[in-house]
């Protein structure tokens, strides 16, 4: 297998994008990524499109996005792994380069969730669980799946709704600095506490929004990367795992996601990271905070703290910039938005800019992490834990 570097990144404005079609939306980030890498569409040999689908009218988004971005007649495909679709697409793109099939691959994650009428949006998300055993008879919604984790966790570890609110406060604080975030407004614990219950104990401000957006990455082989740039960000390791669709078959007593634990274990092993003290290896991380409880679970699943201690990290501001491990300095899914096919790519976009020390100029100097270790982690969960991808980026070239 060959080394793979991220040589170009792009990101569209996230939000309600009623102004564009899905292919126009994809082009926004693709154009940026090509400019960033100093490349033209004709230089790219293969294109991977991450798009969860059903949200928008076009059933085969890889075809129209490929056409609109000037990629014909290069090969392409659509990749789906629920909310971890962007990371799964990156995984495919990584392997297309690593295997030697191509030297330059374009990965674009895109979702246009507002193409589906409002009435059907909750329905579409709810159907992401085990269809006959959770949705058909019991009408679980996405906040509902995570609320089942939240209730158990709060009961077991004495977590309060106010503690969960602190996660939203942090992520909105950083989202307010991100020029491409959907919500660019700081909030307080009161904002969260006064919002209405969506699925008790989760309230509207515990939830990420529905978002239209795209994010693109250009992945290159070692030789190509050396030609193109001096600040190469390497994909050091990717861990991936699948867990049961039915919530009742999951482990960890609903206080963690076993898929995330497994994906982290794989990635740490490949990258030579001590699984007992992973936080000290990273300058920052982006984790899948689709709901506030999900960020707490992520701290623990990734081993940044022990089980049940995630709340301490947020209470002590250890995941703010300058803390033990800064998390979601771009606002996370919560404030930046969560176009489900694009989120995984968006995480890598942020982390690449952070490692290159370009994020401060792009957003705000106070959101630029101190880059000392030259390593960053992306944790992207699909569904309520059915899929997990953990991707490790590094400024140092992986040794083979």
């Amino acid at each position, binding site marked *: 297998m060959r080394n793979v570097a991220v040589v170009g990144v792009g990101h569209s404005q996230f939000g*309600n994008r*009623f*102004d564009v079609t899905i292919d126009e939306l994809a082009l926004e980030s693709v154009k940026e990524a090509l400019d960033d890498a100093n490349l033209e569409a004709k230089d790219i040999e293969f294109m991977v499109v991450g798009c969860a689908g059903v949200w928008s*009218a076009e059933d085969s988004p890889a075809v129209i996005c490929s056409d609109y971005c000037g990629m014909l007649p290069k090969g392409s495909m659509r990749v789906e792994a629920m909310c971890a679709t962007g990371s799964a697409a990156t995984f495919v793109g990584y392997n297309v380069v690593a295997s030697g099939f191509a030297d330059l691959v374009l990965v674009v994650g895109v979702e246009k969730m507002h193409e589906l*009428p*409002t*009435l*059907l949006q*909750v*329905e579409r998300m*709810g*159907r992401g669980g*085990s*269809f*006959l*055993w*959770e*949705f058909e*008879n*019991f*009408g*679980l*919604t996405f*906040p*509902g799946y995570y*609320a*089942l*984790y*939240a*209730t*158990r966790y709060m*009961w*077991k570890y004495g977590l309060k709704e106010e503690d969960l609110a602190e996660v939203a406060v942090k992520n909105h604080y950083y989202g307010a600095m991100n020029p491409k975030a959907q919500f660019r407004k700081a909030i307080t614990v009161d904002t969260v506490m006064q919002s*209405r*219950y*969506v*699925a*008790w*104990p*989760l309230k509207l401000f515990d939830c990420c929004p529905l978002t239209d957006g795209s994010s693109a990455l250009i992945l290159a082989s070692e030789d190509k990367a050396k030609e193109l740039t001096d600040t190469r960000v390497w994909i050091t390791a990717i861990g991936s795992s699948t867990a049961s669709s*039915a*919530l*009742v*078959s999951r482990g960890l*007593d*609903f206080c963690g996601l076993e898929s995330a634990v497994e994906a982290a274990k794989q990635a740490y092993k490949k990258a030579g990271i001590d699984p007992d003290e992973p936080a000290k290896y990273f300058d920052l991380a982006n984790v899948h905070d689709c709901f506030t409880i999900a960020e707490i679970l992520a701290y623990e699943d990734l081993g940044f703290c022990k089980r049940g201690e995630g709340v301490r990290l947020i209470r002590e501001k250890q995941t703010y910039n300058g803390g033990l491990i800064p998390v979601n300095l771009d606002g996370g899914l919560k404030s930046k938005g969560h176009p489900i096919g694009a989120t995984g790519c968006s995480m890598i976009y942020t982390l690449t800019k952070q490692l290159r020390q370009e994020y401060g100029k792009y957003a705000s100097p106070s959101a630029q992490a101190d880059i000392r270790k030259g390593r960053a982690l992306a944790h992207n969960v699909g569904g309520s834990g059915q899929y997990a991808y953990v991707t490790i980026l590094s400024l140092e070239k992986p040794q083979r």
Partner: protein
Amino acid sequence: MSDLFDKAKESIKKDGLPIVEEERSRLPLYISLREFPLRYQLGVSKLQKFFEGLKEGKVYATQCNVCRNKFFPPRADCPKCLTSNVNWMPLDPEGQLLTYTVIRVKPSSFAHYKDYVVGIAQLKEGIRVLAWVSVDDPEKIKPNMKVYLTTARREPEGYITYELTLKAPF
């Protein structure tokens, strides 16, 4: 199905096009005239015993005759042994509530129900079941309380399903 579809029809009468202004952004949206209603049809011949059980007031799980693992949702094939040599067993109704939520914002196909409580119970055999918790006031429940699994009619449709109750059903 679209909430903007009625506006689109008016717009066709007025301007000849199904293009309407999106309320907040005031941007033009082309409202598709082609609805795509989805109602899936699932093959359940391997789960027939489960559905027959519901008619008799029982909730069945399966157990692999090779590795003895038990499954709920019931599986006709063991994922560990990949054998179809499984046994159907009715579940003992007594259990403990592990977690729950109250669904306030519902999927459109559930809009006609009052807010409902979804819970997960751990039953005696070590099996877990996810179902609605039948309770008039969600304040009355908390994790670890005793619950019972029972079959029930879901109204207004009147079909048989299963639920968790706070009182023993017999």
